[in-house]
């Protein structure tokens, strides 16, 4: 376990160097959040039938999305790509650690450090600053105690799931080398099916079943709806089971794929 912790720690310290960039992004994200909320507000005011999720829940959903979007698996790891391209990846094989575990630890650090930096100030603004400037109905509401526990559990699963998807996509670079094509497909799928584009309950009813079973729902929609209380009671357990189920499936698939990829690795001398 110690080598993995060391990897996470080192990557964390490296990413924490970019504090200024994270702060500069805050203003932009607050602005985007406000515009999104105004659009939803206009739609909710013109609703003729009761929408499947309340406006207050949408507001929290939007702010959580602005706070946590850096955690989603959007892209492949640049350093990993260059390691694959230059062949330096064979050095990693010499280390006395499991390569999949190594890749997972890297990904875990890459996802959590920037998210922590962005999420903390965003949550402060959304919960405390907005009511202070006269926009209390647009604030991020604190969850109920039961929902908070459910959210904490679900969010931990989200982190694992996001890293699993990230590692899987990084592994495909062994074949494609560039990673550009898979990044496009990944970004598209994550944006559309996770709830990042619009909250999943607002999609047409005929699409709901398929959306709920996709692995991407576990990245955004399930934890956020648990936070807002839209998913409650026994359904929380089902949501967690879906997240963990997909994580296990994708870890198994990733390990198998990495094994196949390593069989193709050719080490050139010199």
């Amino acid at each position, binding site marked *: 376990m110690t080598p993995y912790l060391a990897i996470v720690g080192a990557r964390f310290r490296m990413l924490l160097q970019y504090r200024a960039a994270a702060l500069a*992004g805050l203003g932009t994200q607050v602005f985007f959040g406000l515009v999104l909320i105004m659009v939803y507000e206009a739609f909710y005011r013109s609703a003729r039938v009761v*929408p499947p999720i309340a406006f207050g829940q949408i507001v929290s959903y939007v702010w959580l999305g602005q706070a946590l979007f850096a955690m989603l698996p959007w892209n492949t790891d640049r350093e990993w790509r260059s390691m694959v391209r230059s062949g330096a990846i064979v050095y990693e094989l010499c280390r006395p650690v499991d390569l999949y575990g190594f890749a997972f630890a890297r990904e875990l650090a890459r996802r959590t450090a920037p998210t922590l930096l962005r999420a903390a100030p965003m949550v402060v603004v959304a919960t405390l600053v907005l009511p202070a400037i006269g926009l209390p109905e647009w604030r991020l509401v604190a969850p109920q105690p039961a929902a908070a526990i459910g959210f904490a559990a679900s969010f931990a699963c989200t982190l694992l799931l996001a890293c699993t998807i990230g590692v899987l996509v990084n592994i495909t670079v062994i074949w494609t080398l560039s990673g550009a094509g898979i990044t496009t497909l990944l970004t598209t799928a994550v944006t559309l099916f996770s709830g990042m584009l619009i909250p999943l309950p607002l999609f047409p009813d005929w699409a709901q079943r398929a959306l709920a079973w996709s692995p991407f729902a576990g990245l955004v929609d399930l934890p956020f709806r648990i936070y807002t209380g839209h998913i409650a009671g026994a359904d929380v357990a089902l949501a967690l089971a879906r997240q963990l189920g997909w994580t296990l499936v994708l870890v198994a698939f990733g390990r198998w794929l990495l094994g196949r990829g390593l069989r193709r690795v050719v080490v050139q001398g010199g």
Partner: protein
Amino acid sequence: MNAWRLYRRYAAASMRGQLQYRASIVMATFATLLQTGIEFIGVWALFDRFGQVAGWTLPEVALFYGMISVTWSLCDAIGRGFDAFDGMVRGGDFDRLLLRPRSTVLQLLGHEFTLRRAGRLLQGAVVLGYAITAAGIAWTVPRVLLLVAAIASGVCVFLGLLVLQATSAFWTTEALEVWNVFTYGGVTMSQYPLAIYRPWLRQLFTYVIPLACVCYLPGLAILDRIDPLGVPEVARWLAPAAGPVFLALCLCVWRIGVRHYQSTGS
């Protein structure tokens, strides 16, 4: 050689350069088309769920969406030199531009004509085409001219914003992500009719950054709709004039910045 001919040479050279990697350009265009295409799926899904927004239908909103999408992609294609200007200041490359006997603005415009932006242009054109046929617009020659003028004027506004963003690099040497609020934020905001927003946001994007003048107001005239905010008919037709004026003001600021410029010496 006059300025226009020189610019055409710059653009042609830039395009020839990019076309050396033809497959890469095609892939990048397709990627942008896919990524911006799903954005409109979000708009469609909301209309499928709610039917309308404050009395506006999907084809009507598609007109605003298509106009701003086309406008931004055109500006993004020609304004790359200003967008990437902070790197030029940091690297000291701007010194070379100052040595040449041509205006810095012309040289920066000629820096790159970004072909990859075609994906977004295509997406905007498709949405605009849908709006043009489905929104029940009574097309007349003045309306067609207004649409073209609004898009041209909108390119001026966005270009002005990129010029301001570049100018700020004279002082900070680092591009500030804050400008994204006005460019990308402006695009996002303009995709829906201005009337649905709170007054402070409407005023910001009408009087400070005149994006409403190149999208919402002319869009109203094209749709022949009564404005919920009560803007008079004549103002809707004249609003696009704000674009060139805004660009001219931004270029004045740019000139102040250039005079202030101190090379990083690297």
